């Protein structure tokens, strides 16, 4: 290789190497801020090594699975409450509004709202988090015992408190 080309090669590799290092350091430092949401365990136990807990009144997003049997709807309004779980503790979400079509028990969701007390969030927006599994209804029925029920036909489970 000609010395001129070699010099250019080293210069470019050096630039890429330094920038990669800088970006990696930045992303590492911002790690917790890039996460879109808290999981219920992070909310209850605190986040990261220093176990920082969000404060009451703080706006945040919470993401987890809707606990089976925890969805309570108010028959006269759009008020709904449900519990979220990941691996440990439960967190309750209160919401008033239209839920996304994919919302159901056992579904992953992300809710944005204000922390009311240690484990309750008053949500202003509820988003469904879809997983990466795609399958026809028959396969889902055979594999998971899931039958697709549109939210309009879902039974009202429990009563709203």
């Amino acid at each position, binding site marked *: 290789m000609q010395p001129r080309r070699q010099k250019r090669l080293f210069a*470019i590799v050096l630039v890429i190497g330094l920038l990669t290092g800088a970006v990696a350091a930045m992303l590492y430092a911002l790690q917790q801020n890039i996460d879109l949401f808290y999981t219920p365990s992070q909310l209850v136990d605190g986040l990261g090594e220093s176990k920082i807990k969000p404060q009451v009144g703080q706006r945040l997003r919470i993401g987890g699975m809707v606990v089976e049997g925890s969805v309570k709807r108010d028959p006269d309004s759009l008020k709904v409450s449900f519990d979220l779980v990941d691996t440990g503790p439960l967190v309750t979400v209160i919401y008033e509004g239209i839920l*996304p079509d*994919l919302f159901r028990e056992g579904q992953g969701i992300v809710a944005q709202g204000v922390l009311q007390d240690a484990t309750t969030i008053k949500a202003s927006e509820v988003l469904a988090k879809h997983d990466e599994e795609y399958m026809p209804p028959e396969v889902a029925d055979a594999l998971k015992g899931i039958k697709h029920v549109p939210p309009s036909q879902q039974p009202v489970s429990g009563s709203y408190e």
Partner: protein
Amino acid sequence: MFKWLHPYAKPETVYHLCGRLMPWLMGAALLLLLLGNIWGLAFTPPDYQQGDSYRIIHLHVPSAIMSMGTYSAMAIAAFIALVWQVKVAQWSVLAIAPIGAVYTAIALITGMAWGKPMWGTWWVWDARLTSELILLFLYLGVIALSGAFSDRQTGAKVASLLAVVGVINLPIIHFSVEWWNTLHQGASITKFAKPSIDPSMLWPLLINILAFKILMLALLCVRLRTAILVNEQHRPWVKALAGD
């Protein structure tokens, strides 16, 4: 080691090679696109949760994969252009950039169209969506920089440098759904694991991925040929070609 490559540094050779390959690539791409889309949109079963809305995956995933694939092709061309200063590589960078920008835009737009009914929102600033948007800006940056200097050579060089540096974004896009928690789901097809998409839906998706790949090469051939003619317009071989 790379001696066999040397003839392809000559614009005239590349021009004729692209001319020969283009009709085949374009034909194959259109055929596969027709097959993959008709199969995917009309003849696959609906998803158990999303119903028919999931069918946008047949456009979204191929364009998203190729937005990154096209970027790596552009970055490799830019690297060769910077280190070895091969003119054809330099022109390839500028020929590839708009193709990749369109793929990225398709991925973002189809993703938003799917996100509104499924997630409940058009856009959320999670790591995957944000890094893919940055990819679009990198493409637009390369296009804009190449035209921002009165000296075309300087512009092309600066654009190539941006293209090479922007490669850092590719692993970030790819691993964003694993490194951070995001609203965007993880990958449905990976190289090593069994795909988490049912085989009846997988085949048209794979066909479309291949089709988008070949379409990118076909479009590159068209654009590179034009770039070669524009840049070599005063050379005898182009004059002879035009004279015929």
